[in-house]
């Protein structure tokens, strides 16, 4: 049996990455001779959710319910999964913060290894997975010899595809006892986040980005002018903040702000994965870079090849001219 933790939206639907994880589990099941795929959800599942999971080939939906699951506690979730996993050979989740956390709890409790952000597997015996490391900039082939094999599936490693021949899924509702120790660290309150300094950055329709190509803390004048002309916000890469050229709250990336503007104009940003993670949902990307092979250029929708210190003033001048 393969057990997949499925996360749900506030309205109770299976999130896309969890459906991807089930898709991944199904291919693993097929490679392993058709072992069944079970899902674990927290809370009473809606009929729609059960139907969705069934369409993805899930045989049984285990629902963890009761006071212990009313608010999130990683150890409690892990304990619940352990209670239903039986003799399953694989316990897995999507590579979300929750997914990674709960799988880490499961692995620690079971005394087995865990692989985070798996993209694919290349064999069952031994079970070897390929996973993202260095924020996705490199891959690791990792042997996962322990049973159960515990891992998470990286977002968009596979496309979420319903099963070709889905069957019905039955629902088993559990209300397990959870040890007090597993409930010590649990969410005690959750609220709408307060707007922070990067608020305008996150909501801007246009973001002008700047990387090490700015050259120095004095190299931002033209970029700020362009930002002004476009009524947008300035976003910068991690190098820029780590050098102290611009404040942290302007940072875009995996660990900075994640932005989704209509247009992102990264200037002199090579496009390390950690930066890409913060801007990949922009509708359009116009990269300005000297290197036509820079990842940011190849991933962009539009690009200008050239130094930002030459291109940006020319754009500013052209905008002013047309005004």
């Amino acid at each position, binding site marked *: 049996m393969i057990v997949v933790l499925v996360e749900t939206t506030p309205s109770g639907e299976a999130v896309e990455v969890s459906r991807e994880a089930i898709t991944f589990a199904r291919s693993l099941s097929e490679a392993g001779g058709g072992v069944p795929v079970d899902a674990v959800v927290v809370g009473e599942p809606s009929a729609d959710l059960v139907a969705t999971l069934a369409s993805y080939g899930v045989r049984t939906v285990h629902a963890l319910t009761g006071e212990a699951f009313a608010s999130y506690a*990683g150890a409690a979730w892990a304990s619940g999964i352990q209670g239903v996993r039986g003799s399953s050979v694989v316990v897995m989740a999507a590579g979300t913060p929750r997914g990674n956390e709960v799988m880490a709890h499961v692995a620690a409790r079971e005394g087995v290894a865990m*692989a985070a952000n798996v993209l694919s597997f290349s064999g069952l015996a031994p079970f070897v997975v390929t996973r993202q490391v260095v924020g996705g900039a490199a891959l*690791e082939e990792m042997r996962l010899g322990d049973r159960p094999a515990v891992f998470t599936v990286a977002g968009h490693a596979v496309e979420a595809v319903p099963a070709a021949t889905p069957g019905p899924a039955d629902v088993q509702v559990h209300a397990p006892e959870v040890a007090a120790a597993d409930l010590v660290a649990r969410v005690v309150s959750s609220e709408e986040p307060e707007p922070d300094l990067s608020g305008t950055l996150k909501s801007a329709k246009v973001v002008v980005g700047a990387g090490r190509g700015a050259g120095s803390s004095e190299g931002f004048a033209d970029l700020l002018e362009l930002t002004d002309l476009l009524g947008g916000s300035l976003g910068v890469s991690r190098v820029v903040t780590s050098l102290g050229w611009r404040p942290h709250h302007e940072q875009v990336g995996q*660990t900075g702000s994640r932005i989704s503007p209509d247009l992102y104009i990264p200037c002199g940003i090579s496009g390390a*994965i950690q930066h890409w993670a913060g801007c990949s949902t922009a509708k359009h990307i116009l990269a300005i870079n000297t290197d036509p092979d820079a990842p940011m250029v*190849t991933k*962009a929708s539009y690009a*200008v090849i050239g130094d930002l210190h030459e291109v940006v003033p020319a*754009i500013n001048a*052209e905008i002013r001219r047309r005004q």
Partner: protein
Amino acid sequence: MTTLVCIKRVVDSSSEVVLTEDGQAVDGRYAGFTTSAHEECAVELAVQIGGEITVMTLGDADAVEQLRAALAVGCTAAVHVVADPQTFGPADVAREIAAVARDGGHDLVLLGNDAADSGDFQVGIRLAYELGWPVVNGVSTVSVADGVVTASGAGPDGHETYRVPLPAVVTVLEGGVEPRYPTVPGRMKAKKVAIDERRPTAEPTGPGRVRLLLPPPAPSDVQILGKGADAAPAVVDLLEQLGVLAR
């Protein structure tokens, strides 16, 4: 109140990633080495919490550079478990941290949520089980009052807050605080701190790594608008077409 904050020397991956010849690690000779961003924030949080702060790492001899960097911004003591980090898996590292934590009588252990290189997402949690302490994972602010840690961060349900009694383990995500830069006096003070060097307490079982490889380049369908300053009219045409030009 004493805090143990755990850091890892990692290759700075903001530029093109280069692997070592044996494919077992990222090559840092061009980009240099740094402390993971999450851990820089963990250090900053520890400094803001105050009290005695021990910074520790498990790494080769060069990792002392990262310990000194943490000392330079306010940590007060340092423990260096000298070992080749490539041969240590997450469970091995958790065990070594637990030994240091127990030995030092710390009340709070802060770690990064995940290491910038190996991205295992589990050392803090395994550490908590080793110690039998509660663990709060993936938060970006931490404060301590009356023996209780209050920690919060972004979660799927909004801004989530945890309150756990000490002793506890907390893993930190970047973004809640701005790590400070070292000052000259801070750096000089750091130089004078004696670093407690230790051997690992046990043979590592290893990370299960077969090898590292680089991902294939993604296909590109970028439309090149031009080169240099001459591209400006085409760019402004596009801005107009996308309707982002303020009128």
